[in-house]
Each structure stands twice: as structure tokens, then as C-alpha cells.
């Protein structure tokens, strides 16, 4: 009894703390989906969410959210705010480990044409993005900036200020690659505290040159646009959008680290079955090809390339294009599932030194 009171009270507090977009009564043919906002969600909305909803004859309401912790808080507090969320594969995996996600029904969702490894039990892969080393073309000249991570960490060859993420995700890999670890061995080396420390030491070596620790894609795009730093780690699509907007920014695929984003369903979602069908619809190649017109994040569905749904020039800009993918390391979700919290604390310690 006491425990239930506690639980419901905690739930009440959590619910109050979250946004006010809570359960308005909705019809059976309405789904609520949340994503990251900005250029990314704009592409999703115009290329996938709304066309897929139209094709199915349902209503899809969109909102933004703060990441997998929102899903966790929502499920634990029994609130009901959205049916589907867009999330990085790693975050999704951590949500699955916490038991707050519904297992996806792959008899409904067709992933038979997905590229290898681009879906998991709890997350249906939708697009592929890369962490790259972007540089200011005004500082270094187009094509003459840092191409590899070794260049990014070489402050003598490429003097200038840098920015890195204020979270560990996708950062340690850059340090080891710069340190000469072959991409096949990166996660082997990182599989111990000593290995993580080695990567952190590499970051320490350029720390005086790190002017900003960025916290969001919008921020690192802005940093490049304003010329606040000369180079930064970040997501390729944001830089391409910034470039179209007039930013003097470029990157080379040799620095790419591939990761993917997908859709998940929070445990206990009211409209679970419809959500499942909707995800199945969104997996179709034509939506992915349409999405890629707005932001350079590549399709997880191999059919897009097979059917030639994308123009060749655009396809070449995707992280998953064979010519680009060949250089790249793919993020290991298993490593993040095992080491994220430990590595994150060690990373914060390095940042605060």
C-alpha cells in the first residue's frame, strides 16, 4: 500500500514536471509522434510523417521531446503523451535495457530490405547519419581543412579553435582513430577503463584548443555558421543544411563515424497496434528518399538505392553511400550499452579538469 502511494506520488510529481501536452482525448485514428525539432524534424515531417499519415488516412500530431529520458519518465509515471518517438539507436537500446519500450513486431514492420544491422528489437532504423570533423572553409580553404581525425587532433598542422560534444557519445572514437587505432579495433581498445582513459588522454592533449563543448546539433551548426570555432565534431546533415544557408563549412568522409536513428514505441502506448502499422508504412523506401531531400541523412532501406529513388548527386552526399561508407567506422550499440555511464562520468571528469 505504502509503495503504491509512493509510486503514484512520484508519478504525479513527474507528470507535473513534464510538459503540458498530456493526454487530451484522441481518436483511434490519431497518433502522436515526437522528434528533435529543427532541420531534422522538418525533413521528417515533410518527407515521412505527414505523407505516411496521409497514405494511411490517419492523423499524426507532432511534437518535440528531450530524448530517451523523457520516454523513461513518461512510462515510469504512467503518463501518456506520445505513441512513437524518433531516437538514436544507442539511446533506444538503453531505453530497451530499462524495460520502458514495446518490442517491435517485425511481422508487421518489414525490414527485409534494411541494410545489415540497421534495426533492433526495439528500434526500427529510419536514417543513417555520421559524426564528422567539420571545418571552416574560410580558415583553411575548401578541401584543405582537416580530413581525418588525426588532422583534427593535429594542432600544429591545423592551428585553430575546436569544439567537441559535452557528452561522451561519438567522441571517444575520434580520439582513438586519431591515435592510429584501426577502425576495426576501436571498440576492442575501448573495452576497458584503460582504453577509455587512453582516448580521454588524447582529447586532453588538445583541450586548450577546445573553445566550446557543444550540447546540440543546432548549436554546433551555429558555431560553424558564426565562425566561433574553426572546426568541430558534429552531425553531417546539420552542416549540409548550414552550408545551404551560407555557412562556410565543409567536411570529409574520411572522418565519418556512422550511426543510425529509428523509431520506438513507449511501453503501454495506447495506440500500439496502429503505431506498429504506421512505423511499417514509414519504412517504405519512397518516404526515406523524400526525407533525404531535406537533410543529408541516408536511408536504412537498401531499396532506395536499388530502385534509384534518389538522384545520383544527392545519393553521393549520404553517409551510407558505398563510396562514403567505405571509410567509416560504425557506432557499436553494444559498447554503449555496456560502458555509457562509466565513460560519461570519466568524460565529465576530463571536461571539468
Amino acid at each position, binding site marked *: 500500500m505504502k509503495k503504491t502511494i509512493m509510486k503514484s506520488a512520484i508519478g504525479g510529481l513527474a507528470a507535473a514536471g513534464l510538459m503540458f501536452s498530456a493526454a487530451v482525448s484522441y481518436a483511434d485514428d490519431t497518433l502522436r509522434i515526437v522528434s528533435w525539432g529543427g532541420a531534422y524534424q522538418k525533413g521528417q515531417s515533410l518527407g515521412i510523417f505527414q505523407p505516411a499519415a496521409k497514405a494511411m488516412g490517419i492523423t499524426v500530431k507532432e511534437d518535440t521531446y528531450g530524448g530517451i529520458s523523457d520516454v523513461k519518465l513518461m512510462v515510469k509515471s504512467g503518463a501518456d503523451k506520445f505513441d512513437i518517438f524518433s531516437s538514436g539507436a544507442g539511446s533506444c537500446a538503453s531505453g530497451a535495457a530499462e524495460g520502458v519500450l514495446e518490442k517491435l513486431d517485425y511481422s508487421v514492420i518489414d525490414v527485409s530490405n534494411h541494410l545489415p544491422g540497421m534495426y533492433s528489437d526495439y528500434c526500427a532504423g529510419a536514417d543513417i547519419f555520421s559524426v564528422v570533423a567539420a571545418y571552416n572553409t574560410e580558415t583553411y580553404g575548401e578541401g584543405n581543412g582537416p580530413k581525418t581525425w588525426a588532422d583534427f587532433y593535429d594542432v600544429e598542422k591545423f592551428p585553430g579553435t575546436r569544439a567537441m560534444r559535452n*557528452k561522451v557519445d561519438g567522441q571517444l572514437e575520434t580520439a582513438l582513430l586519431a591515435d592510429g587505432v584501426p577502425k576495426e579495433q576501436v571498440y576492442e581498445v575501448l573495452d576497458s577503463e584503460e582504453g577509455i582513459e587512453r582516448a580521454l588522454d588524447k582529447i586532453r592533449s588538445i583541450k586548450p584548443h577546445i573553445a566550446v563543448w557543444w550540447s546540440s546539433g543546432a548549436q554546433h551548426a551555429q558555431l560553424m555558421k558564426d565562425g566561433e570555432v574553426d572546426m568541430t565534431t558534429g552531425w553531417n546533415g546539420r552542416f549540409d543544411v548550414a552550408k545551404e544557408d551560407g555557412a562556410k563549412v565543409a567536411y570529409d568522409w574520411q572522418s565519418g563515424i556512422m550511426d543510425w536513428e529509428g523509431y520506438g514505441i513507449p511501453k503501454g502506448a495506447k495506440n500500439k497496434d496502429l503505431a506498429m502499422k504506421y512505423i511499417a508504412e514509414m519504412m517504405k523506401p519512397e518516404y526515406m528518399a523524400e526525407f533525404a531531400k531535406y537533410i543529408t541523412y541516408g536511408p536504412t532501406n537498401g531499396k532506395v538505392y536499388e530502385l534509384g529513388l534518389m538522384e545520383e548527386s544527392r545519393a553521393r552526399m549520404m553517409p551510407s553511400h558505398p563510396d562514403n561508407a567505405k571509410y567509416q567506422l560504425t557506432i557499436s550499440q553494444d559498447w554503449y550499452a555496456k560502458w555509457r555511464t562509466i565513460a560519461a562520468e570519466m568524460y*565529465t571528469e576530463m571536461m*571539468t579538469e
Partner: protein
Amino acid sequence: MTIVEAEKLNQKGLQKVAANERFTFFGLTLPYLIMVTALIVIPVGWLFYLSFIGRDGSFSFENYERMMKSKAYIRIFITTFKISILTTIICAAIGYPLAYFMSQLSRKWANICMIGVLIPFWTSLLVRTYAWLVLLQKKGLLNNMAIEMGLITEPIKIVHNTTGTLIGMVHIMLPFLILPLYANMRSIDKDTLKAASSLGATPTRAFWTVFFPLSLPGLLAGLLIVFVLCLGFYVTPAILGGGRVIMAAMKISSNIELYFSWGAASALGVVLLVVTGIILFIASKLVSMDQLGNR
């Protein structure tokens, strides 16, 4: 009836009246007591309770052990207090002369000045913080202007560090210092200063021996408000600090993301609360509020 008996009866009556009065007063303060219990005592108690809940939901010290293990936490607390203390000192250095100046003006001019203090106070905190970013960044208004005027050749780093954080926070906190201080200074009887002069005190002497001590309660109230508000600051250091200034509130938020548990975040809140309590206790011992009031 003897006088003694009458006195006894009278005393009884008086006691009864006094008891009734106490009861009434207690009844009148009851809503306040309930409010304090419901809004402060229970939530804070809850915070303490949650901080002892581990990830698996059972009682544990893991949230505190983690803080002992990683040096990052102690550094974050040091940063939090350093930034808060510096902001408070700078606010006092700017705010005191300004409040003094305003208190010497006529009501009309003082009110006009007050509008100048209050208008930024009414603007969204987020907007002001981003405005500072635009002004202070490498290719921002300030650096560009200084370079054009030939004052500097290379842009100087005034944002994405402690300097930028302090500039933003002082700007946001200044009204919290000025408002109580100005109210206090206005209430100081100007005749006391005239009396001091008539007794031969120089203006400087009159200010330091008469005016300044009388303004201390307002100053202390302002300092306290600014300091305590600074401790929980999130947005401004997050944006203007560029990730190089990590304060407790930011770590609380990242711990919720990292550990998915209230406990990991609550423990930080508890430590911040306790350390703040201790600092304020020591401060109150050093400068007794009552003493100041009676001066």
C-alpha cells in the same frame, strides 16, 4: 471577597484571555504552517529520501558514493560556489553605488532610473542570455566594433568561458540586489546624515559611520537573494559557459539522462542544499542580522 481573591480571579481571567489569544494567533498562522509543510518540508524530505534510493529501487548510498569517487562532482560544486560568489560580489560592487545614487535622486528621477533597472528584468531570461551570446562571441558585435576601432587586432575571448557566464549572470541578477537595497536606502532618515555633519563629520565619515551601517540590512538581503538564486542557475551558464562552466544544476539534469533515476539527481540537490545551509549558517554567525537591525 478579599483583595487577594479578587486578584487571583483577575489573574485567572487574564491567563484565559492570553491563552485564547495564543490559540487565535496559532489558528491564524495555521494556513502558513500547512503551506510551509506542504510546499517545503515534505518535498525537501522527499528529496532526501530519493537520494538514498539506488538504481534497483532499494535503499543504498550509491548516489553519494559516486560523488566521492569522481573528482568531477567536487569540481562542479567548487565552480558553482565560485561563480555564485563572484556574481554576488560584482553585483554588490555595481549595485550599491547605483542604488545609492538612485536613493539620492528626487522621487521622479529615481522612478525613471528604476524603470531602467526593471525593463531588462521583465525581458525573458533566455532572450537576454542569447543576446549576450550575439554581442560577445568571436565575430560578435563587441569584438567586431573593437577591431574596427583599432582597439584590438585579434578578437578577445569573452564568451564560452567564466567571463561570459559572469557577464550574463550579473546582468540578470542585478535587479535582485538593487530592489531590496534601494527600498532600504530610501527608508534611511536623511536627518541622521545632517546630524552627523553638524557634529563635524566629513561627508565620507558620515557615509561610512552613519549611512552604510543603516543600509546593511538591505545589502545583506540583496546579497543573500542573489547568492542563493545563483546556486541553482542553469540556462545562462549552459549557454554562455560553452560547456566549460559546469554548475550543479547542469549536472543534475545530465544525471537524470545518464542514470534514468531521481536518486542520482536528488543526491546532488541534497549536497547543494546542505552545503548552502552550512555557508549561510556560518555567515549568519559572522554578521548577526538582529545586531544590524538594532544599530
